[in-house]
């Protein structure tokens, strides 16, 4: 057994936490792009694309993220592609994030009064112009706080990527525990690091929310 000082533990965890951050950003940005595309599809498309997006959201919100990760991991292999935990985790988390973000944003768009659409229609704007110049600028304002808040869920979600072998903060914690037999200290440190990562974002989301309500 190697002698690990507390600093060794923290240092190794910090190094691994980089990958938590990277994976979170990939999922958040990728999920945002896919989510935006789904939003436009849902608003613009006909009955069928509406049902498709609703089903997509239901599927990702109604099943465990862990199972989604497993399915991505083993599903990619089915296509004869060499899987890596990296790719599977990025894919699964991106899809997962897109489902939640598209639903959050749809709610924001739905909260814009119908009169705004009607006024834009009456001024002869076409659908994309209505969306881009009238609805989205207003919806974006109310969408920012919950979107920032969801980033916390994404960061926490990346912890599950450890189960398919992606070495991020949680997986590093498990590995260090196996080497040091100090699970209490190690997992406490891991939890603390997630907290340090997430809490400021949660607090930021809350203050954005408050400001939004104050301006009304």
């Amino acid at each position: 057994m190697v002698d690990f000082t507390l600093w060794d533990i923290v240092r190794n965890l910090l190094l691994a936490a980089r990958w938590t951050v990277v994976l979170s950003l990939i999922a958040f940005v990728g999920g945002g792009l896919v989510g935006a595309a789904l939003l436009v599809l849902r608003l613009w498309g006909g009955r069928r694309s509406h049902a498709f997006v609703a089903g997509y959201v239901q599927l990702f919100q109604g099943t465990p993220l862990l199972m989604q990760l497993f399915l991505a991991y083993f599903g990619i292999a089915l296509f004869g592609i060499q899987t890596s935990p990296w790719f599977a985790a990025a894919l699964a988390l991106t899809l997962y994030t897109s489902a939640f973000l598209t639903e959050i944003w749809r709610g924001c768009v739905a909260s814009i009064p119908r009169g705004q659409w009607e006024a834009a229609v009456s001024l002869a704007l076409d659908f994309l112009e209505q969306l881009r110049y009238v609805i989205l600028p207003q919806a974006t304002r109310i969408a920012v706080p919950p979107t920032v808040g969801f980033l916390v869920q994404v960061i926490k979600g990346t912890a599950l990527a450890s189960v398919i072998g992606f070495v991020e903060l949680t997986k590093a914690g498990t590995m260090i525990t196996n080497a040091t037999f100090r699970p209490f200290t190690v997992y406490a440190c891991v939890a603390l690091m997630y907290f340090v990562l997430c809490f400021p974002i949660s607090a930021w989301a809350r203050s954005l929310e408050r400001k939004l309500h104050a301006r009304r």
Partner: protein
Amino acid sequence: MPVVEIRGLRKRFGSNEVLKGIDLDVEPGEVIAIIGKSGSGKSTLLRCINGLETFDEGSLTVDGKPLLHDDRAAMRALRQRVGMIFQSFNLFPHLTVGGNVMLAPELVKKRGQPAGAQQARLLLARVGLAEKFDAWPDQLSGGQQQRVAIARSLAMEPAVMLCDEITSALDPELVGEVLRVVEGLAKDGMTLLMVTHEMNFARKVASRVVFMHAGKIHEMAPPDELFGAPKTPELRQFLSALHN
């Protein structure tokens, strides 16, 4: 040739038939006041004219062109000819007053910056709000917001303006300033179809008054005739209810 020509227009919401065969011709420069009980289909009729609602039967032409719901380009052309003012103003809260007025000309008519701003200032002056160009909608009173909405609609240079109870959401002391603007438009020869509860205004400004009842045009006549000698018991009852 009439600007708006409506023939046998029928509209259902599910099994509820709201418009039961409307025939109406509106000549250029006419001011049509539409009155009637709540639920008689006044709003629905106006909303059919600019395609906010689809209709089930009949035909509707604006400038001689039939309204085709599935033809995007035709609808866009139609809406440039038909402006609409709403009871709840519906100004865009994220744009300044000037921004509200300039948005549609810029996007739809591809009008550039200086020309668009110049036109917006002229229109705002016309509704008495020249100094509010840079103000935000939530800094204005209801009456001012409604006048901006009128200017915004005028910026598209419509041939017809539809007004749906545009003073109903206003405090009584603000009604006058909006009605004066509308009266000015009428004097300048704008074709207007307005749903209104302001009978005195209808009497003074309208060239014809339409009384809607149960989804039909129940009576239609110049204001003196319609208010002075109502022919049907329904209209008489409606008018006497107003006085009490």
